[in-house]
């Protein structure tokens, strides 16, 4: 991207994959500089969302995948009874919409939990580009594999664990994902509500609060409103029995899969 302009173009800077701090988690991982430049050409910036704004709805035509740049997103489906079932929470560097490739329609609804921004990648252009850049193709496989693996983790989480193990695993998972983003692994603000945590983990709201209280009483964590401080990390990790690789989702970039 040679330019004769001397004026610094902030919008170009923002969208640049090469400069993005999330590049190692996202599509550009492992690509050569000229390949990243090609990728940047097809990426579009979309309007940032405020809390409660929708990114896409279930049933919407699938046209692009989204990479979270900042904020936090929840994905859910509405059951036949009209209830919301949360499928997952998405943090920066994570991709949304890959599950719609098959049906060409989105199969879940995504909504911002806080002010969030995204990059959008038109899927047909991405497919074309993959044919030219084998490294990109491979990275997409890896990201999809990450999704599959994450789904497996969720099933294990929901099927096998006690309420206490579920919450501990949830916190350790979140901690690891934030750590990969360069944030503190031991002190973070929960972007989601206790109702949403309960919905996701299949626990009642009262149980969620009871377990958090107990973890605090046992001096594993300290809670100040939505701020969580993990004070006994070894112990809380040891509570996540069954799926030791619970942080796998976050460690894809480091090649743990």
């Amino acid at each position, binding site marked *: 991207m040679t330019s004769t302009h001397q004026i610094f173009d902030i919008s170009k800077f923002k969208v640049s994959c090469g400069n993005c701090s999330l590049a190692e988690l996202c599509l550009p991982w492992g690509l050569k500089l000229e390949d990243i430049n090609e990728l940047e050409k097809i990426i579009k910036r979309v309007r940032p969302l405020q809390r409660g704004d929708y990114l896409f709805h279930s049933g919407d035509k699938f046209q692009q995948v989204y990479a979270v740049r900042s904020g936090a997103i929840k994905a859910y489906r509405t059951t036949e009874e009209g209830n919301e079932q949360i499928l997952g929470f998405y943090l920066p560097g994570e991709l949304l919409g890959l599950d719609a490739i098959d049906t060409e329609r989105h199969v879940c609804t995504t909504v911002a939990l806080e002010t969030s921004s995204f990059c959008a990648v038109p899927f047909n252009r991405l497919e074309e580009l993959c044919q030219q850049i084998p490294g990109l193709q491979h990275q997409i496989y890896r990201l999809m594999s990450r999704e599959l693996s994450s789904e497996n983790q969720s099933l294990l989480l929901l099927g096998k664990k006690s309420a206490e193990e579920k919450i501990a695993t949830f916190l350790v998972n979140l901690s690891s994902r934030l750590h990969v983003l360069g944030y503190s692994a031991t002190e973070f603000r929960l972007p989601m*509500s*206790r109702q*949403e*945590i309960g919905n996701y983990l299949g626990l009642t709201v*009262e149980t969620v*609060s009871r377990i*958090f209280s107990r973890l605090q009483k046992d001096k594993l964590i300290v*809670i100040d*409103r*939505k701020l969580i401080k993990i004070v006994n990390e070894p112990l809380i990790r040891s509570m996540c029995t069954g799926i030791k690789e619970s942080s796998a989702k976050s460690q894809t970039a480091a090649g743990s899969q």
Partner: protein
Amino acid sequence: MINSLIFNKDLITRYDTLGPRYTSYPTAVQFDESFGHDNFVEIARVTNEEPVPRQLSLYFHLPFCSTVCYYCACNKIVTKNRAHAAPYLKLLHEEITMQSNLFDHDRVVEQLHWGGGTPTFISHDQMRDLMAHTRSCFSLRDDDSGEYSIELDPREANAKTIALLHSLGFNRISLGVQDFDPDVQKAVNRIQTIEETLTVIKAARKHAFKSVHIDLIYGLPKQTVESFARTLQKIIDLGPDRISVFNYAHLPRRFKVQKQINKSDLPGASEKLNILQHVINYLTQEGYTYIGMDHFARPDDELAIAQKQGTLTRNFQGYSTHANCDIIGMGISAISKVGDCYSQNVYEIDDYEKALAAGRVPIFRGLKLDGDDLLRRDVITQLICHFSLDFEQIEARHRINFNDYFYNEISILKGMERDGLLSIDTEKIKVSPAGCLLVRNICAVFDKYLRQAQAEQTFSKTI
């Protein structure tokens, strides 16, 4: 913890200013009218979403009084006509319903308080209805483990009232006495016998109320050291768990009813301080612990215990044992503290009615605290409750360097150190026994808004 307290008259005279009492920081003066219904609903939602939402503290303002006490600076409605209570209570019930819809019902009500005015102005049936409605809307404790208190006027209560209040779930009472001296009582239009007070206290003891609190005021007309000493002696005989001795501030321009007080009857500044000195000496000699500001408590009272354990806090009723509640204030002029926000209800019943009819939370002003406010509130609360401040704890909680952040404040505190109010080094502030009575002045150093106002005043004076 400090139990020793030195009364230094020179120092107190030198630092004598009318300053905030820091029942909130920032103080209500900073509340902004742009804070409204939507802000309140939003902050209630945010607190419901916390992994472990805080328990609730409910305050109910019952503004009616059948007679007027001339010293009073409370928001009240003086009327002999008891019928006035019913329409107000109807509105209060509406607010209770509205508020309860904003807060998750697994949030237990740990604290509850009826204040006034005179809460016992309303009839026994009205009391029953009010508590029953509150219970139907919120999750009240029913095992006597909550801290449920009421302000009582012994002239408006008897053993039957106490029995009723006990059956409704109250387990703490706060009695207005002010002074037993007949001349003082006459001068402030509050004639109240020792017998009335004793009857109420006896009944409270019989029903195993956990704490009996008595309010006194010094600086009232006709008061002398000797007369107040006699009152104190009678108070000690009644054996309350807590005693507050408030300073009367004569501000007839702001509080019109105070015009009824003859200024020449007021004790002079020096006499007032002598009264205060006697209060402190006498109460500590009688085994009461000085909690802070104007509060004393028996060493086994929960307030003294909370102070020992470092969990004491300050709220709109003074000192309190529950630091971690979200406070919902209901009724006219009531103040709420939910999440990082303060808000206050409208003062007039007409406005109250209009807001409720429109389905809006009846607040007219409030404030969302920013990081600096939260930090300063933490500092002020620590100082006013515990008379000492450990910088490291504050630094860990607010991610600042104390000595850098409060560079200007520290230089002012160094002046106070020279005056003997406190000691300060690079790690902590410790209020000295002589500084305890001036802890408000020490807190005021950290009050950004007060200092801004003072700077503006100085500026306009010098120009």
